[in-house]
């Protein structure tokens, strides 16, 4: 049963709610939907899950872009209503007929809605009955979109609308409904192998998407966690996180690698220097307090290129000659009259061209896809204003969307946060995490330099106790910048070292503690566990993910896995996730700035710093407008 169906304008006024179903919604699902989905450019997703104490809802929506209306349906997640999509489109159609911008109340719509609902329910019943007759359906609706395995973010979910109402199908139906970015991969494989299950399960009111074998391969290799051999339907009952936990705990300890046949050394290698004050450090240059202004404080000077509107038609080059002529003429005609309602087919080529362009700028493929879907959802049905081409409308919409994504959701004023923490007499703790070799230690030193320039007292904590030379590296930086460093040498537990560092900082009154951690791959279970422990134990104020701008599609995987691990392995109710991103090696890419977009989109956290070189002053803020311009050039 539907919990609620709302119609509201994009400006925020509710025009109509269903008064028959008078249930008040628990929590505020609509607001959350708007904030975390529609404004985050995820409007291309199929549905949204909302959990509040005492309720678990799923929300589906559709837009009427021309009139600026949004239609949202809310229902309980355990029910899988088939008719919701259908109902939404019917409601959209009939409401747009009676809509008038001056009218504020639409009580007469109640009757219409009741009829529509009865119709939709009846139709769904029929469809279900006909399917029960045993038509094996070989695949799942929208599998293509869902099978992008990397995308988890707890709220992504493909609603399949499996026939929940059927009593006979207890767990069989569960097969169809449990979806998760990962489980879908196996899901698909199982579909093929066990056709009998599908006899009643799969909904599929419309097209059957053919199984794409190549996608299967991709899925498998993309780290579908430990599900390889498991094919039973019951196992799917477990959430994927449990499966991850069930993975062999035998990987708990990391054994030293033995490269040759030589017998392993008995003693542990520990080259910790006994901490001597000034012993052999005289030859190290102490950097003068001023190496110049950090680029964080310099105004960004970028030349404003003239708008080049003539060269934005790459799409037309792809069309064959004859179709090109006709296409050009009709598009020019349409652009002058400006009456056309944008359809998916019209937007298709323009969006495809845009997606290609984004991908050449090093944006991850899935992100580009999702963005294009979101822009499509927001433009479909809109009237083209006169004298504009479709491509320029699409471009403008995409630019808007990009600016919206890259604009930070919360304040990134670190100095302000530091001052706030100072008032409470606690040190402000920043933890730098990331995979191997992205530049954590280098950029930590840059941040320390910048903070020092603003009269903030900094302390470094050397919690990278694994890599040889890491502690010495930080020690050298500390000596050059003349800031204290807390170190305990190698082979110590980083979480404990961090804890002691923070206590030391409280004692000697440092404002900020910068914690350096060892690089680790996102798939490495024990290392991620160690990281989670460090974060849980110390509850830092800022968890900064360091990512390099050179990364391509892996950015999506890195960030989503990091976030997932941090949330899964967290002990408290409120898991600390990645709060900000530090983008490094920005000077090595010329205009392939897409990594910034991928990272921000997938994690939702803002880019706080950009590292653009290897000296202390090479740290700057992200210039949103410049990046958007470069991406769409």
């Amino acid at each position: 049963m539907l919990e609620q169906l709302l119609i509201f304008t994009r400006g925020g006024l509710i025009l109509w709610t269903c008064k028959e179903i008078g249930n008040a919604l628990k929590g505020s699902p609509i607001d959350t939907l708007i904030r975390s989905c529609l404004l985050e450019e995820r409007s291309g997703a199929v549905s949204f899950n909302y959990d509040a104490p005492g309720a678990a809802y799923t929300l589906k929506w559709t837009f009427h872009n021309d009139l600026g209306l949004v239609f949202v349906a809310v229902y309980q997640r355990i029910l899988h209503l088939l008719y919701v999509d259908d109902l939404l489109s019917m409601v959209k159609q009939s409401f747009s007929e009676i809509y008038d911008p001056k009218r504020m109340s639409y009580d007469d719509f109640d009757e219409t809605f009741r009829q529509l609902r009865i119709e939709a329910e009846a139709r769904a019943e029929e469809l279900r009955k006909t399917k029960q007759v045993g038509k094996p359906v070989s695949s799942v609706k929208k599998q293509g979109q869902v099978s992008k395995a990397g995308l988890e973010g707890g709220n992504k979910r493909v609603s399949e609308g499996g026939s929940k109402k059927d009593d006979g199908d207890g767990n069989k139906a569960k097969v169809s409904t449990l979806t998760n970015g990962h489980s879908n991969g196996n899901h698909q494989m199982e579909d093929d192998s066990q056709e009998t299950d599908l006899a009643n399960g799969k909904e599929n009111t419309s097209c059957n998407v053919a199984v794409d074998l190549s996608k299967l391969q991709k899925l498998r290799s993309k780290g579908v966690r430990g599900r390889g051999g498991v094919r039973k339907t019951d196992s799917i009952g477990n959430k994927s996180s449990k499966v991850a936990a069930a993975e062999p705990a035998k990987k708990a300890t990391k054994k030293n690698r033995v490269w040759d046949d030589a017998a392993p050394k008995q003693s542990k290698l520990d080259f910790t220097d006994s901490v001597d004050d000034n012993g052999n450090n005289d030859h190290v240059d102490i950097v003068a307090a001023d190496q110049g202004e950090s680029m964080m404080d310099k105004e960004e000077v970028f030349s404003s290129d003239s708008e080049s509107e003539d060269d934005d038609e790459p799409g037309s080059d792809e069309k064959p000659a004859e179709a090109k002529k006709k296409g050009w003429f009709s598009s020019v005609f349409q652009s002058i009259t400006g009456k056309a309602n944008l359809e998916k087919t019209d937007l298709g080529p323009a969006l495809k061209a845009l997606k290609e362009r984004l991908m050449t700028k090093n944006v991850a493929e899935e992100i580009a896809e999702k963005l294009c879907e979101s822009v499509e959802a927001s433009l479909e049905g809109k009237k083209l204003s006169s004298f504009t081409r479709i491509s320029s409308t699409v471009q403008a919409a995409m630019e808007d969307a990009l600016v919206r994504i890259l604009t930070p959701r919360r304040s990134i004023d670190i100095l302000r946060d530091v001052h706030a923490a100072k008032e409470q007499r606690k040190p402000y703790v920043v933890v730098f995490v990331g995979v191997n070799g992205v530049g954590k230690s280098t950029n930590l030193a840059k941040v320390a330099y910048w903070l020092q320039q603003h009269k903030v007292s900094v302390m470094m904590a050397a919690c990278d106790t694994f890599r040889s030379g890491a502690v010495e590296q930080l020690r050298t930086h500390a000596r050059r910048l003349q800031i204290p460093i807390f170190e305990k040498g190698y082979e110590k537990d980083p979480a404990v070292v961090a804890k002691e560092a923070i206590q030391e900082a409280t004692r000697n009154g440092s404002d900020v503690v910068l914690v350096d951690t060892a690089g680790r791959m996102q798939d490495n279970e024990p290392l991620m566990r160690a990281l989670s422990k460090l974060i849980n134990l110390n509850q830092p104020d800022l968890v900064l993910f360091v990512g390099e701008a050179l990364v391509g599609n892996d950015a999506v995987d890195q960030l989503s896995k990091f976030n997932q691990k941090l949330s899964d392995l967290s002990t408290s109710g409120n898991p600390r996730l990645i709060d900000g991103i530090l983008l490094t090696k920005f000077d090595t890419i010329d205009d392939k700035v897409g990594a910034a977009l991928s990272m921000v989109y997938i994690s939702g956290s803002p880019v706080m710093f950009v590292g653009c070189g290897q000296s202390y002053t090479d740290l700057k803020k992200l210039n949103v407008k410049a990046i958007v311009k470069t991406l769409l050039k």
Partner: protein
Amino acid sequence: MENLEDLKILAEQWSHQGIEYLQKIPPTQLYAAIGVLLFTTILLFLSVRLVRRTKSNTVLLSGLSGSGKTVLFYQLRDGSSHQGTVTSMEPNEGTFVLHSENTKKGKIKPVHLVDVPGHSRLRPKLEEFLPQAAAIVFVVDALEFLPNCRAASEYLYDILTNANVVKKKIPVLLCCNKTDKLTAHTKEFIRKQMEKEIEKLRASRSAVSTADIANDFTIGIEGEVFSFSHCSNKVTVAEASGLTGETVQIEDFIREYIKP
């Protein structure tokens, strides 16, 4: 006396010379010249009058997400907030006569009211509307004030240091909404808290003073604790309640700056 006589004679001489000169010019040219002169003066006159008349009548409703701007917008326009609101994704604009003034007789100048979404991702939209604003109403949630105090003060700080606002001295009304609830804070409390927070912001932002990229100007007087009276534009505080329709103070403010 003699000087005056001399001047008179000089003037007469000049006028004679001028008339002779004028008579030398063919009449058509003369008429054409006079025509052009008249035309340009009329044009100038009209344009000056027009420029003066298009004094902006735009009032901006801004504030954090959830403070009640959309409700206030509909209250001012229709006298009721209809069936409720959700988080706005786009600005609400309208040019209308305020609802309470519908009953007044005579021609009242309509007000162009713009409700700008408060969500931080939509912050750039505010920049679009600031150049044409004649007055700004900054709405604050008096009920949930303390948790949002920092974010609200940062937003207000950004508005007060915006180039357009400083140069044109746009007046700002700090409106405390939701005062119909029992546990809502008073406007005096809110004002003091905001002043304190802005003082802190001033200190931390001016630490970046050599290249303050974020803010165009600084506000307040050096060495003194910040107070709203230090701003070059006028900042006042008022109370309102969107749900019950208590919007008298806002309307007074609007009418003060947009003459009916």
